């Protein structure tokens, strides 16, 4: 037989399996990106014509299926309101927990492990279970007892209300804030903490003046991710505060509220004529998506920068 024909390093045999598997996994990747593109494209394409100033600034009548007169102002306000109240609760608790875990706790102590396990678990609890929890704990326990203590003759707090929906969402998004804050706290060089302590700063002073300002982008990412996750969630608020229809905007923490995500659900499943109401359904979805997605993209960008910094350090 011939001696090896090629003296150079080029292989003349086509490597079928290499081609096959690279192609297959590449296709899987492309397919996922394709799904994302199709969903987004479909919604933007069908939704943008329905969006007008009138649409986002009108309080609809009870017949909100009417394509000409309807609007989504109360839903935007309701969603924003519940998310803002949630943020007020979740950010401090989440950030302080992350500070404890990274700055104070020893990694090997049992209590730290339990806290971490609890955070992990909280992240995995189904959103509908949070809804049940909100109903069983916040409304039927806390709210009813508040009414009893305040001698309210009719239920004020012991019924679905904005505050309970917000608190339920705050419990749900707690892990998001903790994890993001922890990530950014870990990205701060230990040398900065040492420098501050060596100058005679206390631990608290070091955290407040050196660590937290540095961790701000990460904390913001956590907050934004929590907001975007909560803004799109419907299941936890189903029994804790959302209303099918309200003639006025919510003004008090004990009010019920209308909600964008829930409204999408109502429009798509209870419409008397789905063909006719499709434009307002798509327009509402687009409004919801713009809200959550814009926030998400901002969070992803900040996080990418934080991660890059982290990698540059190690």
């Amino acid at each position: 037989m011939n001696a090896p024909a090629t003296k150079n390093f080029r292989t003349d045999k086509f490597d079928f399996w290499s081609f096959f598997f690279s192609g297959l996994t590449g296709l899987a990747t492309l397919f996922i990106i394709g799904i994302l593109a199709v969903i987004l494209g479909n919604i933007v394409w069908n939704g943008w014509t329905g969006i007008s100033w009138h649409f986002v600034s009108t309080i609809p009548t009870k017949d909100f299926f009417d394509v000409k007169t309807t609007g989504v102002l109360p839903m935007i306000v309701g969603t924003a309101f519940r998310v803002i109240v949630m943020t007020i609760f979740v950010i401090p608790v989440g950030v302080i927990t992350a500070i404890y875990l990274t700055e104070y706790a020893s990694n090997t102590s049992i209590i730290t492990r339990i806290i971490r396990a609890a955070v992990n678990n909280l992240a995995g609890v189904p959103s509908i279970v949070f809804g049940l929890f909100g109903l069983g704990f916040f409304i039927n326990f806390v709210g009813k007892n508040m009414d009893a203590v305040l001698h309210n003759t009719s239920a004020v707090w012991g019924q679905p209300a904005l505050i309970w929906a917000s608190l339920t969402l705050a419990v749900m998004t707690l892990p998001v804030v903790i994890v993001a804050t922890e990530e950014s706290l870990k990205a701060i060089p230990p040398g900065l903490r040492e420098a501050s302590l060596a100058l005679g700063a206390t631990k608290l002073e070091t955290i407040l003046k050196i660590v937290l300002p540095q961790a701000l982008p990460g904390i913001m990412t956590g907050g934004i991710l929590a907001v975007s996750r909560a803004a799109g969630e419907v299941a936890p608020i189903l029994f804790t505060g959302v209303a099918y229809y309200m003639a006025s905007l919510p003004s008090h923490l004990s009010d019920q509220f209308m909600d964008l995500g829930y409204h999408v659900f109502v429009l798509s499943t209870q419409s008397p004529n789905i063909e006719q109401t499709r434009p307002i359904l798509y327009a509402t979805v687009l409004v919801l998506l713009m809200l959550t997605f814009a926030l998400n993209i901002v969070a992803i960008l900040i996080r990418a920068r934080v991660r890059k910094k982290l990698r540059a350090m190690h």
Partner: protein
Amino acid sequence: MGIHRGHQARPGEWLAEKLIFLISLSAIGMVLLIFLFVAREALPVFFGQTDTALIQPVIPTAELDRHSPAELQRYLELTPEQFTTMDKETIKTLMDVKIEALNDIPENFRNDPDAKINTTEWKYLLRPHQWSGYEKPERIWQPVGQIKKFNLIPLFVGTLKTTLIGLLFAVPLAVGAAIYVSQLARPRVRETVKPVIEMLSGIPSVVTGVFALIVMATVLQHIFGYQTRLNAFVAGIALGFAVIPVIFSIAEDALTSVPRAYTQAALALGASRWQTAWQIVLPAALPGVFAASVLGFGRAIGETMIVLMVCSASVMSWSIFDSARSITTTIAAEMAEAVNGGPHYRILFMLGALLFAATFVSNMIGDFVIHRFKNKLEGKR
């Protein structure tokens, strides 16, 4: 004043530290509270304290004095406080009302043997039963009407159907993409593709639901040509969209954390890139990929809105092209009409407790496997 100033010299610092510690316990507190309060509402079902029998044994008003106050209180469904505030006349009236209510039950139900049974007993919750008017014993979930039927099996089947379809769809795609992104793609491609796939997790599930309901259901029906337009198959695929990002990011993380020394050793021996990925990296990262699937399962089983929007009829059927109703969907759809504290309400909470337990266990397994996997890679035990 020297350096001798003890810790008590800084009470503010001490207080802040204790406060930070206390607040950090809130995550533990929340998990406990969730467990406690979901279980609290569900416990009466476990202990057989709920009763849905339409026809209860009647105590004639005249026999009032032959029964103990405790018996009467239970019979009239009153709390002890309410009972003690009532005089004999009121109690008599209530007993009359009770008898009248019984007489108001339509004739056809009064002779129905099903009207005498408590459908929240375990055998009716789990086993098939010969309901009157049905041809053979069946498992039925039908919580409305005079005789409420609470068989849980159709819901379990519905949940499994949609979840498994979702996983069968999502796992190969997500793991394939994770292999591609972490092992085969050029760094430039990786940096763009990763955040794009993560973006998928930013789509609210109602939005995925709308897309599945309006676009996907029609397209899939055209392709596969089945009868029911909205079915478990459509719901499962849409569910897959929701779990792809979860599985992808955990699997990608596991694949990336395989030490570079392994891959470089293989490449140095002349293995091609995909051979290295297939023969070295994937086996090493297998526990991580497994954990990703388990955590994806936990996410899929708990997803509510997608299945609620796409299909919701509770039929007992294993066919993937029939409708299905999952546990989450049932809770979401029926809680509003369930009477606070009633049997239906309690059973829905029990379903929630089961769901919580299922995700708790799958998360534990997933986290445990990942933890061990990472420790192993780092050479710790």
